[in-house]
């Protein structure tokens, strides 16, 4: 990998590198910035891990990364969710090299140390030669784990305060609107995850996933190949015609809000009521006619919950940083409960079209991000290599802790970066990684 010059104190001055209307390209490529992010955002802050529906049975586990830290999300014997390091406390061997599975306990392949599902060390082979108290030697665990409506988050440092503060009113509303798409109020992530490996910095994904300005250009091929997708009326009509808006909440959560643009119910599902009658009936039974009508018209949100959870309409995506220039964009269809499976079949098909390395949309975003990353690979802090994010800054509205503006405006990008600046700026002069 081509690395930039060693970081200087100036390269970590995040208040300089993230300005109100522009950011510096070295934020994508500088390894010292990446190291700071792994500490400040992915260790000291709340990060999305997974959904409780992924591990329905006792002993079910899925393998995850919190930043670059390998973790297991596990269903415990008492029914609760544990998040533990996927790393033996003895010599550090990865306990579970697969993506998912079901275990009675976790036994390390190297020397046989065995852990309960919650990470408690159960036994060490050859106990006569080992004098430490096994009660002190469980698997590493994040300092805090909490969930909101089944969406599990972890904070490794344990110092981030309550999850409800991290989500705030904006993040809470976004997860509510996502979860309410299911007639039971509980979504199900059981169709499997697909990972798309992209040779770009991870932060290009919160940006690109929630950019209302790029559709006509980045996705021009889709508009030509399928001239009647629902994206036509909600984002591809241009600056003056679209009623959609771009929105930034407190806390770095951002949304492309299409609700004002849909001209038919279920437009976001690309279908009509008679095709998914059982689902619509179930929504009405669960929520009443008025609320169900709103859900059917508004559809799910298209939004980022800072820093790594992309609520991608009827998909959930996880943005996983691997290295400054490598990211995995994981996605799974958002399935619903309390209705027949026909709507879930439709959702899987829709997911396959929109998301992933062979899809009609994300492939073009990936190449654009890779081109962008290449263009900044040699960027060092200085006069060159700035990214302009000023679009719409003079016309956005501020109310109730939110900023919103025209769908083509960079309000979402600024919302992400300004929160990023608040989080990262505290590193200066006090870097746990010694870069400052």
């Amino acid at each position, binding site marked *: 990998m081509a690395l930039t010059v060693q970081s200087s104190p100036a390269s970590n001055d995040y208040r300089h590198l993230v300005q109100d209307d522009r950011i510096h390209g070295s934020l994508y490529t500088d390894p010292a910035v990446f190291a700071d992010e792994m500490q400040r955002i992915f260790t000291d802050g709340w990060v999305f891990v997974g959904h409780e529906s992924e591990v329905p049975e006792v002993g079910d586990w899925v393998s995850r990364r919190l930043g670059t830290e390998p973790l297991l999300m596990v269903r415990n014997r008492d029914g609760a969710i544990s998040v533990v390091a996927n790393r033996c406390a003895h010599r550090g061997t990865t306990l579970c090299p697969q993506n998912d599975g079901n275990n009675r306990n976790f036994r390390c392949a190297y020397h046989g140390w065995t852990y309960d599902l919650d990470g408690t060390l159960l036994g060490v082979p050859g106990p006569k030669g080992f004098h430490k108290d096994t009660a002190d030697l469980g698997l590493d665990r994040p300092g805090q784990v909490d969930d909101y409506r089944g969406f599990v988050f972890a904070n490794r440092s344990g110092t981030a305060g309550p999850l409800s503060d991290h989500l705030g009113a904006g993040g809470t509303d976004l997860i509510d609107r996502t979860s309410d798409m299911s007639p039971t109020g509980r979504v199900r992530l059981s169709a499997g995850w*697909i990972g798309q*490996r992209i040779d770009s910095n991870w932060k290009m994904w919160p940006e690109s996933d929630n950019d209302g300005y790029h559709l006509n250009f980045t996705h*021009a*091929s889709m508009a*030509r*190949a*399928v001239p009647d997708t629902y994206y036509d009326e909600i984002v591809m009509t241009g600056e003056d015609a679209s009623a959609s808006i771009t929105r930034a909440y407190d806390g770095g959560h951002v949304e492309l809000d299409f609700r004002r643009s849909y001209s038919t119910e279920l437009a976001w599902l690309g279908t009509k009521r008679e095709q998914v009658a059982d689902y619509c009936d179930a929504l009405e039974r669960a929520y009443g006619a008025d609320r169900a009508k709103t859900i059917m018209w508004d559809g799910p949100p298209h939004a980022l919950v800072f820093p790594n959870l992309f609520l991608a309409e009827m998909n959930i995506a996880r943005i996983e940083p691997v290295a400054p220039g490598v990211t995995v964009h994981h996605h799974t269809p958002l399935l619903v409960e309390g209705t027949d499976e026909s709507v879930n079949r439709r959702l899987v098909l829709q997911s396959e079209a929109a998301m992933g390395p062979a899809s009609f949309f994300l*492939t*073009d975003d990936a*190449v654009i991000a890779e081109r962008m990353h290449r263009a900044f690979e040699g960027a060092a802090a200085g006069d060159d290599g700035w990214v302009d994010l000023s679009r719409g800054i003079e016309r956005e509205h501020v109310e109730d802790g939110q900023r919103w503006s025209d769908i083509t405006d960079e309000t979402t990008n600024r919302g992400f970066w300004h929160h990023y600046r608040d989080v990262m700026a505290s590193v200066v002069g006090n870097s746990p990684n010694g870069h400052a």
Partner: protein
Amino acid sequence: MATVDEPTRRDIEAFVYLEARLADESRYDEWEALVTEDMHYWVPFGPGDYEPGTRVSYINDNRARLGTRIRQLATGVHHAQDPPSSMRRVVSNIEILSAEDDEFEVGSNFVLYEHAVQATGHLRLWAGRATHRLRRTPDGLRMAAKKVELVNSTSPLPNLPFII
């Protein structure tokens, strides 16, 4: 394993090689002419031993969606294949797995080298097993299904916007 006469075997092998070469050279109009109206093009996650649509796949195209895929490639503004990847695949271990009436199930292995020229310039290596369902028609053999099981499909994959 099925036994077919030698002219049939030669036709089947020639079809598999032609299909591979047209895909290598991004000759999608000609490639599309090889498929039937009930074509299913499938790149599963993990082994292709599940019913498509019951869990998420990389690609699960019926004939209509495959048509969209090829139209998108032909727009000239599909950045993920602009310019098209330079590709060559080696197809081997061709076996005729079943032969019934006018349909043949054909298994083969492949190794594909892709020069991803759109952004990174990386040489990407793809490997896997293809299973073709070929049908004898008045116009010659045609493809009714292609399933591609990549050896590394359970790990994150880079862009796969071309026909594999």
